């Protein structure tokens, strides 16, 4: 009440407190996402129906050719399928690792917990390129792994895991792991530990306690963490080409190639629309499965 009377006593132009003034505070953020995300996305949608001929980036048209090309030419379908599979596997591995780690973190106390939190935070603070480079020195013939195993006498010849799907999944998991850990930790932190004791107390052995109590209580966290890792991996560009085999041609890489090598803007835009759809689709699916918004959970 007081607020109203006081501000009414002031000249109108000072009334940042008024509703209109407060709406003005929303404008910069809204402008940023509208001008640099929403409008370009709509522009890309329009662009994806354009044609690409000769030396020009695009020519005005209304055609489904780009989408047809995507759905009929095997290399693009393969690329789509591979990206999808890669994202699924990475998300699954991420969730397993993140679950084990977050559960451990949840059970720790005091400085011990802080140390493990700091460890979980590490991959989040390091650039994707540095992570790629680290594994790039670890996996090849003359890399740390091969040399170490050789010196330990565990192998006789140098080995290389470089440029394998395995290496790509390792790199991708590394990047999405911290998000998974923190999402799951926030779920664990909302659980009263005594329910586990209660289950045990009432006669449930360890694995039963997990299946009957802990797993159902953390299910939504698992779904959100999975979706998060999936969304991140599906649009990835750098890690799969740097660590994976040449055959691991993801959509992200395809977009880059179409844009920079072939200067085929319409087709690059069509591919980008597919990515956007996949992201929106997995967000919607997550929401259906958990009743929560992914956006509420990072």
């Amino acid at each position, binding site marked *: 009440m007081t607020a109203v009377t006081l501000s009414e006593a002031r000249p109108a132009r000072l009334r940042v407190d008024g509703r209109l003034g407060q709406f003005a505070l929303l404008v910069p953020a809204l402008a940023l996402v509208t001008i640099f995300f929403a409008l370009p996305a709509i522009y890309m949608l329009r662009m994806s129906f354009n044609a690409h001929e000769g030396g020009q980036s695009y020519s005005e048209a209304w055609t489904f050719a780009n989408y047809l090309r995507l759905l009929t030419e095997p290399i693009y379908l393969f690329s789509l399928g591979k990206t999808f599979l890669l994202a699924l596997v990475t998300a699954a591995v991420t969730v397993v690792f993140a679950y084990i780690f977050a559960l451990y973190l949840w059970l720790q106390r005091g400085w011990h917990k802080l140390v493990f939190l700091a460890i979980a935070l590490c991959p989040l603070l390091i650039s994707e390129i540095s992570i790629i480079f680290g594994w790039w020195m670890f996996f090849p013939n003359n890399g740390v792994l091969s040399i170490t195993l050789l010196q330990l006498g565990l192998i006789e010849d140098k080995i290389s895991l470089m440029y394998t799907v395995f290496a790509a999944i390792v790199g991708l998991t590394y990047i999405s792991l911290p998000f998974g850990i923190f999402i799951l930790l926030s779920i664990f932190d909302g659980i009263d530990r005594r329910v586990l*004791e209660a289950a045990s107390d009432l006669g449930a052995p360890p694995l039963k306690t997990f299946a009957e109590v802990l797993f159902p209580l953390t299910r939504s966290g698992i779904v959100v963490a999975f979706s998060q890792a999936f969304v991140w991996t599906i649009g990835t560009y750098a890690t799969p080409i740097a660590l994976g085999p040449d055959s691991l041609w993801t959509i992200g890489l395809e977009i880059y190639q179409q844009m920079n090598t072939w200067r085929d803007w319409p087709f690059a835009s069509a591919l980008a629309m597919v990515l956007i759809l996949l992201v929106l689709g997995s967000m919607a699916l997550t929401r259906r499965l958990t009743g929560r918004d992914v956006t509420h959970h990072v």
Partner: protein
Amino acid sequence: MSPALELVHLSKRFGGVVAVDDVSFSVAQGEFLTLLGPSGSGKTTTQRLIGGFEQPDSGEIRIKGQRVDRLPPYRRDTATVFQSGALFPHKTVAENIAFGLRMRGVPAGEIGPRLKRALEVVRLGGFEDRYPAQLSGGQKQRVALARALVVEPAIVLFDEPLSALDLSLRLQLRGEIKGLHEELGFTAIYVTHDQSEAMAMSDRVAVMNAGRIEQIDRPENIFNRPANEFVYVFIGESCCLPLTVNGALRAPDGRPIDLSLARPLPEGAHRLYVRPKQLRIGSEAEVCENRILGRITFFEYLGDVYRYHVDVGGVGLFVDHAGMAPFGPGDQVLLGWSSRDMTVFQ
């Protein structure tokens, strides 16, 4: 027949802190024993050791003669009513209560009737399909109670089950628990820091302090015949008058004082305790066997009595007096008490 529960020289430390220090007692079949003590006294740890949530460093726990101290919780015949209730939030009331029965391999045909009876016992018929989030605090504790009782464990453990509830609900539920105990005859270990709860419900009370049991006895004896100074001070309100014997018995201000004692006190410092309700003031004090002069500092109205705060040689005492007495702050008054109401500790 062996007792329902026996603890033998049980000890547990966390890092450098001794939480439970050489605790031994046994509980008879059907007995209601309360562990009472301030926070950090080791009462909860003792109970968690019995439930199997902590492992003892040394000592033994026997349930009906069988050693259980190395068994995990799910192999012990105990069931706990947790402070928070610890209901499974993703299961309905019925599923919560049936959980223990399923885990203990009770045949499916038997679960239904037992569940129904348990719901009746805690008066929650019709709440089967609710989730814990849809229940009030009191209802949650009733479900927690039913969930523990329905498996008919050798021992029911109560971990401050009422401390999160408001006063009237607390009084009501404690009556219900007591009633169920009389009706069903289970053996109970009840942990609380609320002495009235302990006094009202228990067959016996174990007063704990710093990991040790100070006294274990019937509630009346805990109050009337405290084993030591800690129990005296912890149970009920008390006034303390420090005394010294230095040639003669002296009050806090150093002046000699005359007390009617059964036998003389040895040289050194002593502390005399009286309950505020047993102290007399003014003309009522003149007939008492023991008397001392003091000055009123202030008084307050507590609803049923007036409490007079009296300074005696620098020591603050307080006296509860029914009705207003004819004096105010600054007045010199006589305090008196009967010898049988005082306790002296060295």
